[in-house]
C-alpha cells in the first residue's frame, strides 16, 4: 500500500503570539516550529498500516519554506520512507491554493491512501484534507478516531456531536486524523540515524491566487485576572452568591 501523509510544519502550541510590524501576520521571530500535532496521528496510522500489510511505502508531503524539511526529517525518523517538499512562498496562500498544489503532486504519486491531520493548529482551517479529496474526486472521511482497511475498502469512525458516525468508502481515499486515532511513536535513535540517509525531494512550486485574503491580524483583548473569592469550602456561599447575583450565570 502506497500512502501519502500531508504534513505541515507549524508553530509550537506553547507559542506566545506577537504581531509583526505590518499588522498582517504574526511575528515569526523566535518561534519554534514543530510537526502539526494532528499530522503525527496521520504519520503513526500510515506506519501502522504499512507494518500490518508487511509492504508498501509511506511518503511525507509538505508544502512550505525550506526549513520545513526539518519536520519531514522528524517523520522519516519515525519510520516514513521518503519525503517531498514543495517549496513555496506561503505568505498570501490560502487553503484553496495549497490544496491545489498538494493534490497535483498526489495525483502524480497515485497513492492508495492520503492521510492528513484534521486541522493545522496555526491557521485552524480544517479544510485542506477534504479539499484535496474533492480535487482528486476521491472519497474523504474527516475527524477520524478509528480506521480499518480491508482490501479496497475503508471503514472509519468519525467524531460528531454526542456520538460517532461509522462511514464506509472505497480506496483510494483521503482520511483526516483526530486525536484518539492512535498513540504516535517517538523516533528511536536508530530511526533518527536512518532518517539522515532518506531522500527528501525538493521542488519549487508557484501557488495560485488565494480565494481568501487576510487583511489584518489582531490580538484578542486578553482576559484579565478576576477576583479571588476566598479559600476552602467556607468561600462556597460567597461564590454562589456572586455567580447568581453579579455574573448571573447560575
Amino acid at each position, binding site marked *: 500500500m502506497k500512502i501519502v501523509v500531508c504534513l505541515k510544519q507549524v*508553530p509550537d*502550541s*506553547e*507559542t506566545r*503570539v506577537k504581531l509583526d510590524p505590518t499588522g498582517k501576520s*504574526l511575528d515569526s521571530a523566535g518561534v519554534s516550529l514543530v510537526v502539526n500535532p*494532528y499530522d503525527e496521528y496521520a504519520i503513526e496510522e500510515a506506519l501502522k498500516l504499512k507494518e500490518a500489510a508487511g509492504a508498501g511505502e509511506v511518503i511525507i508531503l509538505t508544502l512550505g519554506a525550506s526549513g520545513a524539511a526539518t519536520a519531514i526529517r522528524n517523520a522519516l525518523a519515525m519510520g516514513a520512507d521518503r519525503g517531498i517538499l514543495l517549496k513555496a512562498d506561503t505568505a498570501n496562500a490560502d*487553503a*484553496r491554493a495549497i*490544496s491545489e498544489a498538494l493534490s497535483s503532486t498526489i495525483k502524480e504519486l497515485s497513492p492508495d491512501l492520503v492521510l492528513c491531520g484534521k486541522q493545522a*493548529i*496555526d491557521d*485552524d*482551517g*480544517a*479544510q485542506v484534507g*477534504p*479539499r484535496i479529496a*474533492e480535487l482528486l474526486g476521491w472519497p*474523504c472521511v*474527516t*475527524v477520524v*478516531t478509528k480506521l480499518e482497511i480491508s482490501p479496497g475498502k475503508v471503514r472509519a469512525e468519525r467524531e*460528531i*456531536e*454526542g456520538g460517532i*458516525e*461509522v*462511514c*464506509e468508502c472505497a480506496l483510494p481515499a483521503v482520511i483526516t486524523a483526530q*486525536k*484518539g486515532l492512535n498513540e504516535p511513536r517517538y523516533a528511536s535513535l536508530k530511526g533518527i540515524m536512518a532518517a539522515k540517509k532518506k531522500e527528501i525531494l525538493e521542488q519549487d512550486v508557484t501557488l495560485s*491566487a488565494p*480565494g*481568501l*485574503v*487576510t*487583511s489584518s*491580524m*489582531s*490580538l*484578542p483583548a*486578553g482576559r484579565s*485576572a*478576576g*477576583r*479571588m*473569592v476566598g*479559600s*476552602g*469550602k467556607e*468561600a*462556597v*456561599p460567597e*461564590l*454562589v452568591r456572586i*455567580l*447568581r447575583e453579579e*455574573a448571573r450565570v*447560575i
Partner: protein
Amino acid sequence: MSILVFIEVRDGKIRRVSHEVLGAARRLADSMGGKPVVAVVVGSAIQDVPSLGPAGADKALVCDAPQFEKYSPDGYATVVAAAVGRSGADTALFAATSMGKDLSPRVAARLKAGLATDCTALGAEGGRVVATRPVMAGKALAEVRWDGLQVASLRPKIFEALAPDSSRSVAVESLAPGVSEADLKVRTVEVKAASAGKLDLTEAEVIVSGGRGMKGPENYNILEDLAAALGGVVGASRAAVDAGWRPHGDQVGQTGKTVSPKLYVACGISGAIQHLAGISSSRCIVAINKDAEAPIFKVADYGLVGDVFEVVPALTEAVKKLNSH
C-alpha cells in the same frame, strides 16, 4: 445576490445552531440593503420548515429524500452546490459543527471558492463580507475577505438567533437530490450515540472540567454531580484524557474542543496555555485549585483556592439548595 444558509438536520429536526447562522445571515443581509436570505435544507422527513421564516429566511430550498436520512458528504455537497447556483448566492454560510466543518470545504472546493472556517464575527464593507476568525486557537484574530464566492462557517454559540418574528414567512421550494445512490462515495452506515442525550461540549451552556487534580477516573462523579446541578456537562484537560480517565471527545483546549459556554468551572486544572486557548471565549470562568499560584487564576473571573474534594461537593449542595428555592 442572496445569502445562502445551510440548515443542519439530524433525525428530521432542524438543529438550533442553524437558527444562529440564519440570525447572522439576516443581520448581514439587512446591513447590505436587505438581500434575500435563502435556506437550503437537506435531510429526510424534515420537520418544521415553516419555522425558518420567523428565524430569518425568505426562501427555503428543501431537499427531502430518504437517501439523506444520514449525513452523506458527497450527496449533501452536490445539493448545496446546486442551491448556490439556483439561489444566485454570493455568500454561503454554514455552522462550524462536525457536519458543517465536513461539508463546507467540499462545497467550497467544488465551487472553487475561498472558505473562512469557524468565524466569530461578520460584517459588510462596500457590498462585500468581512469576517473575523480566530487562528492559533484564539491567540490571534484574523480579518479576512474573499475574492469571488464567499463561503464561511460560523462558530456555534457566538451568533445570536433572532427572536422569532411570526409576521415573517418563508417561501418553500423543493430541490431534487441530483445524485443517485451510486454517486455517494462515502456512506454513513451507522450513528452511535456516545451516551444518549449527552450534550456536546461545544453546545453546552455550562461546563465543569476536571484535570490531573482529580487524581483518578473514579473521582469524576463529583464533577458529574455538579454539572447535573448546573445543567451542564463534564469536560477534561488533556492530562486527564491522556491518563485515560476521560474519553478524547471530552478534551478542552488547543488540540481538543474550543468551547464558549456561559460558565466554565475548571477543577484541578493548572491552566496551561494550550488549555486556556480552548476556553478563552467562555463568558465566565471559575477556577478551583489548591495552588494559589496556578496560572488558571490569571484568566479566571472568580477563583477559589481549595481542595476540589472539599469544595466541589459543597458547591454542588449550595447550587442544589438554590435550585430548590
